[in-house]
């Protein structure tokens, strides 16, 4: 008996399209229907008033509080204080410097996106750019007056702390995770102790220690930059979390990968660097980005040691005698800026995951 081959046919209409999606996802059971109605009711109560406040009744033009006559938000406040939100107390005359840094950073990102290969150049840029950014922001060279880190603030400070924290905690975290996997008992127990100790302490304590307690141990007259102390604290703190993320990646890698690398004759650093770490990092990308997103938001804690990040600028600007009571506008604006950054980070992580997935054809 021979059976003739059958052609594939389309699924029935009710299984496709928007109606099918609604039936499956919104109206599949009485419970589900109730939730759908409740959800719509909540959205109806929240969204229209917000739109009225933020857009329809809001004031966009003007220069002072007195221009804000509507019932809605006073975006004039954000517009007038934008430089403070972005750069803190950075001197007006020198604002071109952080602007150059930001523009060149964006240029670099675009460059590395379209410029395939040549890892050496990218690596050089990773090392050269921070130097360039520091010289531009801090000054003291090429006739640029020095701008103390005390005056850095707003989004600029948030970005400096977050990017330094991410870039430096990553390699330290990798070393710690390798240490924790190590067969050498001393290295292993030191790494375990460090990781567990740091994970047992809140970031706010670390910052407080770095800012208040650490200087007590410095000799008389030595004053170590406050921002640098915060950066060291945050980096060392975050490294422990990065290490644990990467360790979870190690555990997902089959023993056969280690054995194949051994059998080919790879030494320890080659095995880890060329075979194990690239896979472990790939597996942990979602977790790593999650850690970095919370680092980005945690930068706000530097407020307690007297650094004025983006969030702290709301308090500063809304305490201005001319703009009293503008806290809501400030917080909404700052929340929006935070959201842009964290959301971009999570989209980028999705993109990376897809790009590095080698199980499907390219």
């Amino acid at each position: 008996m021979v059976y003739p081959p059958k052609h594939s046919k389309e699924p029935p209409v009710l299984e496709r399209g928007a109606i099918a999606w609604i039936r499956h996802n919104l109206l599949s059971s009485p419970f589900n229907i109730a939730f759908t109605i409740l959800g719509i009711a909540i959205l109806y109560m929240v969204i229209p008033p917000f739109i009225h406040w933020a857009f329809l009744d809001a004031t966009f033009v003007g220069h002072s509080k007195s221009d804000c006559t509507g019932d809605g938000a006073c975006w004039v406040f954000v517009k007038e204080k934008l430089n403070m939100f972005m750069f803190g107390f950075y001197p007006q005359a020198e604002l071109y410097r952080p602007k150059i840094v930001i523009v060149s950073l964006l240029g670099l990102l675009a460059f590395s996106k379209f410029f395939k290969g040549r890892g050496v150049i990218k690596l050089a840029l990773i090392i050269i750019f921070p130097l360039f950014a520091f010289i531009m922001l801090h000054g003291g060279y090429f006739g640029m007056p020095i701008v103390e880190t005390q005056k850095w603030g707003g989004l600029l400070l948030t970005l400096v702390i977050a990017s330094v924290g991410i870039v430096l905690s990553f390699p330290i975290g990798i070393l710690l995770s390798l240490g924790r996997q190590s067969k050498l008992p001393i290295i292993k127990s030191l790494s375990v102790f460090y990781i567990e100790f740091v994970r047992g302490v809140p970031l706010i304590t670390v910052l407080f220690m770095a800012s208040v307690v650490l200087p007590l141990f410095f000799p008389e007259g030595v004053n170590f930059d406050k921002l640098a102390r915060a950066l060291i604290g945050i980096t060392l703190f975050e490294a422990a979390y990065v290490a644990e993320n990467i360790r979870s990646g190690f555990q997902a890698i089959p023993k056969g990968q280690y054995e194949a690398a051994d059998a080919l004759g790879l030494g320890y650093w080659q095995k880890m660097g060329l075979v194990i770490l690239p896979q472990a990092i790939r597996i942990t990308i979602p977790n790593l980005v999650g850690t970095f997103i919370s680092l980005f938001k945690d930068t706000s804690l530097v407020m307690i040691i007297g650094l004025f990040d983006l969030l702290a600028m709301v308090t500063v600007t809304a305490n201005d005698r001319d703009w009293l009571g503008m806290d809501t506008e400030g917080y909404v604006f700052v929340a929006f800026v935070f959201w842009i950054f964290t959301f971009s980070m999570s989209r980028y992580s999705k993109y990376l995951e897809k790009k590095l997935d080698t199980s499907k054809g390219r």
Partner: protein
Amino acid sequence: MSKELGEPIIEINKVNKWYDEFHVLKDIDLTVKKGEIVVIAGPSGSGKSTLIRCINRLEEYQEGIIKVKGIEVNNDVKNLREIRANVAMVFQHFNLFPHLTILENLTLAPVWVYKKPKKEAIETAMHYLEKVNIADQANKYPNQLSGGQQQRVAIARALCKSPDIMLFDEPTSALDPEMIGEVLDVMINLAQEGKTMVTVTHEMGFARKVADRVIFMDAGQIVEENDPENFFHNPESERLQLFLQQILNH
């Protein structure tokens, strides 16, 4: 079998190994000569994989001595490097590196460990990929290939460092039945070229066709060894007779 065999290249002398309390290798004595094809058979848990994994020190042993090309297999870093350069292994689960392309899998060790120029490493890699009939897949990733193709790539990867000895650890056990043939064909070609091979396998057809010697292990010891003709037709020990009945008459 009237094949000219060379000097002893693997010498295993009174080797004992324990996993905690479990005595997994018991007084193993085995000498493999250059160019010899040895097949190790036996029920699972008999220690046959453990034995060949001791030869390139993926496993350590506690007593006795193993020498490869006269070099003792021990903790000495220099010895280990020498041995790993001369002994290649093919695994049951292929163990290709999934984040690298086929070509990168093959050139990784030659470029990084044996410091070959990249161009030369690529040429060698392509040569071996052609040999295992898979050169057209060089730029794909391992997970895009079938099991049989992956195992052929793994064999090509093992060959890339021009090893004197090839160890095969159940190379066809994880494959779908219709893919076993293509891998065995590659192995038979290798055997006929005179490469020294030690193979743990259940493929008795392969043993019959190319082995110079077949070894039967059970419960951590070598129970019987013979040329394939006598191994299959005149098994002496009762345990081998039983084993052959089980695997040949199912």
